[in-house]
């Protein structure tokens, strides 16, 4: 990975439009689409197909496209190639000639490439007036292939109501467009008509289909000029009636960094520089050993004992987790680190039990008290902080903990203005102490080892155990008696 001064980050200096997430995708697709169409450079063969009495110009089959994608983009799985191809289609760069729904099929379905004029990267945001003109002109031409689909007819009806006052204008524009279209060559018209239709399939998709021109509202707000004049597909001048959506109200303009900004950056950079960098080999090892340790607990990687509740619809796993009677596997986790042991309520309990047996539970109780302090509402913080001082740190405290003089000084200073983090240093110190001393002994203790190795007391030793044993005995005797009776019967007959 190239690490230059750029990796400290910086805003793009190019036009924000270029940086918009949709635009980034468009450029990538355009690169692919240009390559597919380049027959000389290994692209697909675009040809004219004979159909009944007519010819279908400039088409390619879905299967050909899928094959090309698999070969040229190193895609092994055909399903993935279809997914990718459908993405390209959904954005309108390729389209099926006989369907409004923009997906790619891996068969003989015929597709055509979109004209660069209509590419989404041209930032089309066609108005309803344009759409109305389009639907209107389609009704003017007596061609079966131009008949409106049901949803289009509904849209046209709606637009006629919405634009009732200026319908004459729209009608005239539509007529003008029809005149222009008539002048074109027949084959060319077939192609252009289909491309125009595909354009509208992107911007006015079939109900139920995704509108791929939609943008995340968080990104919309960074548009440099949300009120820019939108160009019309049919050259209709903008009458300024378009309403900006609430999303497009311009946020504050990007401000230039000030002297304070740069000074702050310098402070942060110094903080970053002033730290010890660990070797990559060491951190890599650390990551690998962590994942290795925890992979057996990761339900997405390993099978879960006793069963995965989502698959088998039973809640045994969760019942066990909630119980204070932990499984061996769970107890094993406590041995990974003190953090893991303390994360688990059962682990906390057992560690506390162990420390109590050693008469050294004050450290853990202090640590727990400070954790609790950090979550208290502000009004309780001050009094709680004082209570902790009295219990653990004051002279003659009942649960006196052992702090080094430096931490002690800092903590008593902090308590002059008590806050949630007053005990942070002390807590860290105590944690380190527990980690290096009592935690290690805990892992060697009987309390822990018994649980880890599931060394439970023998059932026969307990009252309950005796009863269970008796039950088992009775049942087994019953079974063998039944077996004998059956055999006896069979032998006699």
């Amino acid at each position: 990975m190239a690490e230059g001064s750029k990796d400290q980050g910086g805003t793009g200096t190019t036009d924000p439009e270029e940086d918009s997430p949709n635009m980034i995708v468009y450029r990538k697709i355009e690169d692919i689409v240009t390559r597919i169409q380049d027959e000389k450079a290994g692209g697909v063969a675009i040809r004219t197909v004979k159909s009944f009495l007519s010819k279908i110009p400039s088409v390619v089959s879905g299967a050909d496209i899928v094959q090309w994608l698999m070969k040229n983009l190193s895609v092994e799985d055909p399903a993935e190639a279809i997914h990718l191809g459908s993405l390209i289609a959904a954005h309108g760069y390729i389209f099926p000639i006989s369907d409004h729904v923009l997906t790619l099929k891996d068969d003989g379905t015929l597709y055509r490439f979109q004209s660069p004029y209509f590419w989404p990267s041209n930032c089309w945001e066609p108005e309803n007036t344009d759409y109305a003109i389009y639907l209107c002109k389609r009704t003017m031409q007596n061609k079966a292939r131009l008949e409106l689909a049901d949803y289009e007819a509904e849209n046209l009806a709606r637009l006629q109501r919405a634009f009732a006052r200026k319908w004459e204008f729209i009608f005239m524009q539509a007529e003008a467009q029809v005149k222009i279209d008539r002048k074109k060559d027949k084959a060319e018209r077939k192609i252009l008509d289909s491309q125009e239709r595909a354009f509208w399939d992107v911007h006015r998709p079939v109900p139920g289909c995704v509108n791929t021109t939609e943008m995340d509202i968080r990104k919309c707000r960074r548009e440099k000029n949300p009120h820019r004049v939108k160009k019309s597909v049919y050259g209709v001048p903008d009458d300024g009636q378009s309403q900006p959506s609430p999303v497009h109200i311009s946020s504050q303009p990007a401000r230039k960094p000030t002297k304070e900004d740069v000074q702050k950056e310098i402070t942060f950079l110094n903080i970053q520089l002033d730290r010890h960098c660990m070797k990559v080999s060491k951190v890599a090892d650390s990551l690998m050993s962590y994942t290795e340790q925890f992979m057996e607990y990761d339900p997405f990687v390993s099978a879960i004992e006793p069963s995965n509740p989502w698959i088998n619809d039973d809640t045994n796993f969760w019942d066990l987790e909630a119980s204070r009677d932990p499984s061996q596997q769970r107890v094993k986790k406590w041995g990974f680190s003190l953090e893991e042991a303390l994360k688990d309520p059962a682990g906390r309990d057992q560690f506390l039990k162990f420390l109590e047996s050693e008469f050294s539970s004050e450290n853990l109780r202090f640590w727990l008290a400070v954790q609790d302090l950090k979550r208290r509402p502000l009004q309780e913080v001050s009094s709680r902080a004082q209570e902790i001082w009295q219990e653990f740190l004051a002279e003659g405290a009942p649960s006196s903990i052992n702090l080094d003089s430096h931490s002690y000084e800092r903590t008593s200073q902090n308590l002059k203005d008590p806050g949630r983090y007053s005990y942070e240093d002390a807590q860290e110190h105590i944690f380190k102490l527990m980690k290096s001393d009592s935690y290690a002994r805990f892992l060697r203790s009987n309390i822990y080892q018994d649980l880890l190795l599931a060394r439970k007391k023998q059932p026969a030793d307990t009252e309950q155990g005796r009863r269970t044993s008796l039950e088992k005995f009775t049942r087994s005797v019953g079974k063998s008696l039944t077996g004998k009776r059956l055999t006896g019967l069979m032998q006699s007959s």
Partner: protein
Amino acid sequence: MGEMEQLRKEAESLKDQITAARKAVQDTTLQEAAAGITVVGRVQLKTRKTLRGHLAKIYAMHWAVDANLCVSASQDGKLIVWDTITTNKVNAIPLKSSWVMTCAYAPSGNLVACGGLDNMCSIYNLKGKDGNVKVMRELAAHTGYLSCCRFLSDSEIITSSGDCTCVLWDIETGTQKTVFAGHQGDCMSLAVSPDFKFFISGACDFTAKLWDIREGVCRQTFGGHESDINAIGFFPNGNAVITGSDDATCKLYDLRADQELITYQDSSIMCGVTSLAPSLSGRLILAGYDDFNVNIWDSLKSERVGVLAGHDNRVSCIGVSADGMACCTGSWDSFLKIWN
């Protein structure tokens, strides 16, 4: 003018020194170090539940810590708390502003928060005395949209905003405790470290920053992405950070080595990453993309080991439950799906 030039030069020189320090510890790469490990086997998760009820794009979801509850926010102006096992709606909270972009569940399970174009973070109490869910607090001070929020406890919450800052709030008093300023682009996402001492933010200036919650300063900055960082998360051990960007890649940065360790990318993936979540062990990274799919990556080998295809529109949010058992995805198609 001269002073500004000097300051810029100083900043550049420091950046160069940081780059040099990073290079100095690059005795290997994660890919080399993990060369001996076999790739995780194909991961095939199935949809176990579909949560239906939202009427518009879902922008965010967040798991509760304790139970199998989660909260989701949609542009239909509702915050819904789901019982993912029964698929029942535990709460359906109507919002004042429908332009919501984020939601969060408090670790205690008592509170949820949300925010969006209203520039505010609204806190709701789920365990109110009379059983009704009401707004408990409205945290207002940001001058840009609220992109993300995460609770530290019932008393404190951290928010990130389109005004390029992150803020630590005291919920009780409704005041800003600390403002974390430094990003030069909209802050899109944030994540809190497992020990609650740090948080990381990803922004539209293509960088991720690690902040010390107590000190209020930025400790480390990571670059390398070529576009907005939309999603960010901690590796489960708290020592590494994962980011997802509009440049269609995810990256893993190690905090102790102070640098990028690996990039997760594929030439056939062209759409931006919207959301991500590591699996319980960190060995898998599940990332949601604009192309309607979730891709599952082997975090150490940087290979794709699975795909979750089931949504009919962008995957906008993803989360792995606290026990690692289930993954929840939310989409612009208005559905949430539970996978495992």
